[in-house]
């Protein structure tokens, strides 16, 4: 447990896993993000941050999805659900 991580997806550092709590979007966008795996209750890990275009790549429900930082910022995580994944890539 690393309680220092804040509770939104954009703050997740590479190699850290957490559980999704809620999505703060209008209905259509929320449904699409859930269909792509960002479902409350799913665990999500940050795989890498892509410096170009401030994207980050997440692993969720067995697939890799790229999100912009500002989109990730509106996905909240369950408090103190973060765990560090030792074999993750940090670059």
């Amino acid at each position, binding site marked *: 447990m690393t309680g220092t991580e804040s509770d939104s997806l954009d703050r997740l550092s590479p190699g850290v896993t957490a559980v999704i709590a809620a999505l703060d*979007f209008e209905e*259509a*966008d929320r*449904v*699409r*993000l*859930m*269909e*792509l*795996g960002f*479902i*409350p*209750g*799913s665990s999500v890990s940050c*795989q*890498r941050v*892509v*410096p*170009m*275009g401030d*994207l980050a*790549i997440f692993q969720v*429900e*067995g*697939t*890799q*999805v*790229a*999100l*912009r930082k*500002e*989109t990730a910022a*509106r996905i909240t995580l369950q408090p103190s659900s973060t765990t560090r994944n030792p074999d993750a*890539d940090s*670059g």
Partner: protein
Amino acid sequence: MPTAVEAQTETRQSLPGKNRAVAICGPPNVGKSSFFNRLTGLRQKVANYPGITVEKRVGSLRLKDGGQVDLIDLPGIVGMHPRSEDERICVEILRGRSDTLPRPVAAILLLDSTNLQAHLRMVPGILGLGLPTLVVLNMADELEARGGSVDVEAVSAQIGAPVVLASAVTGTGMKEVLRFVQGSFAPPRKVELPVINNIPAERKWAHSVAARSSYHTPEPSLWGRRLDRAFLHPVAGPLIFLAVVIAVFQSIFTLAVPLMDAVESAISVSAGWIGALLPDSMLKGLLLDGVWGGVGSVVVFLPQILILFLFIGLLEDSGYLARAAVIADRSMRSVGLEGRSFIPLLSSYACAIPAVMAARTIENQRDRLATLLIAPLTTCSARLPVYALLIAAFIPERPLLGPFLGTRAAVLLGLYAAGFFAACGTAWLLKSIVLKSKPAPFVLQLPAYRWPTICSLAFRLIDRAKIFLRRAGTVILVTTIVLWFLASVPYQDGEPPPIGESLAGSIGRTIEPLVEPLGLNWKIGIGLITSLAAREVIVGTLGTIYGMEADEGSPALQQALQSELSFGGAIALLMYFAFAMQCMSTVAIVRRETGGWKWPAIQFAYMLVLAYATGFAAYRVFG
């Protein structure tokens, strides 16, 4: 091979009718098209405008009893809430609300067995349609190779539908799939499924089904990680992207040459045969100069088009294209477009028409309008024959970057870049002046890396060749014949006139003052008019004009152009084709999509001004 197809013999019912359709559906990249190809082989038809995203293919399967089943290969969906045009098509067909296809009598739901928990979430939505459904867990080969396993019978018992573990690559499970398609279909057994449209409940259900089917998650693939590390690296990533693009353009010239020579000699040899067979007559002139000269000069470019699509296929099937989209995201963002505009724009490298249709993906109406207005500026494949002809005639081949990049490929790359930057600049103008709006969230799924299969690449190329040849056999053939007649009248002393004095010639001379500032003569002017039908028609037109002009054996089109056009004029013509909206089908589709003539008129005028101005400037600079 474990199978649960037999699980439901009690409720089987035969369905009448000869052409029953079975739909293949599922999430993107699970192997739907590979499966479809494997089942139907060459007995398939492509819908009119298969781009990278909007496509719908129908193929037929002969049954042992003499009947026939149509298989429909649908675009991928991630749920029952379609957002993009291709997803909407898919859901409409499944619900039986499509205007073009009848409701399928059964569905094959393809899922990726290496990611079963997540993919089983699709099951309730599809079974809820009430169609007899076979659930195929594809990629069995990969599941096994990575140490995963699943109890198929247990999955079947829990979802109330037959389930097969299969692989489109090795062919495992195909027998069961064929049995389902050929036999009669059983409607899904009533099983308690989670409430449809409650995604968190569907997720919980899917995970529990997987757990109770002793699903062993396969080991994650390590080399996928390694490839991402290179392709998405801040420095290496963009460099690899650039290298890939350069390699594609270089091979359009180097790899295609022997193939093009072969096509060209096949055309001239067959023209020789026809010439020897037919007596001198007007029909012979039409066939030789009009059809063989005109259509033939376009068909020569088939190898280059196929090489372009071979690379697009390799990049898409391997999973690299999505990584390239990540790399390219910043430039999309800097011109104010949302990331989703990237996919329609990508398909406009094939053709602007699917791009304009795929712009329906974008809910934000202003972004959608901006995307469909700029789509025709990106370099569609119809421009390739025009570019290739002019580049081969006017740009001497010299190495630029050692053996990796020659001058010709560099000019072609420059033309593609010109189209891309013009599209971005126009988007920026539109977005900062007329169509301001807030960006929508950007989400892009990155498929797992996979080896592209020869079979799937071959089918893509066959599709492309069919479309190209169909155009050559319709639009290009008709304009070529019309042009040939205009160039053959009025008869002088019972002989066709010299082309300069024909009807086509006088039309050309009338517009010559308009094209002269670009360094072009009246013959090219005729080409600019005929190519309003479709860009590559200009190649056919010039083929016809120069073919008719030559008395003894037509000189190669390239040589004729070299003597007619200055270097500056050739560059001006290239710029004109890069920017002008020489495509009536695109005008028509933009009118349909925007519901009026206003936007297509603005778009046509804008592109014409841009084309004329850059052509004029190019002639001043290089002429």
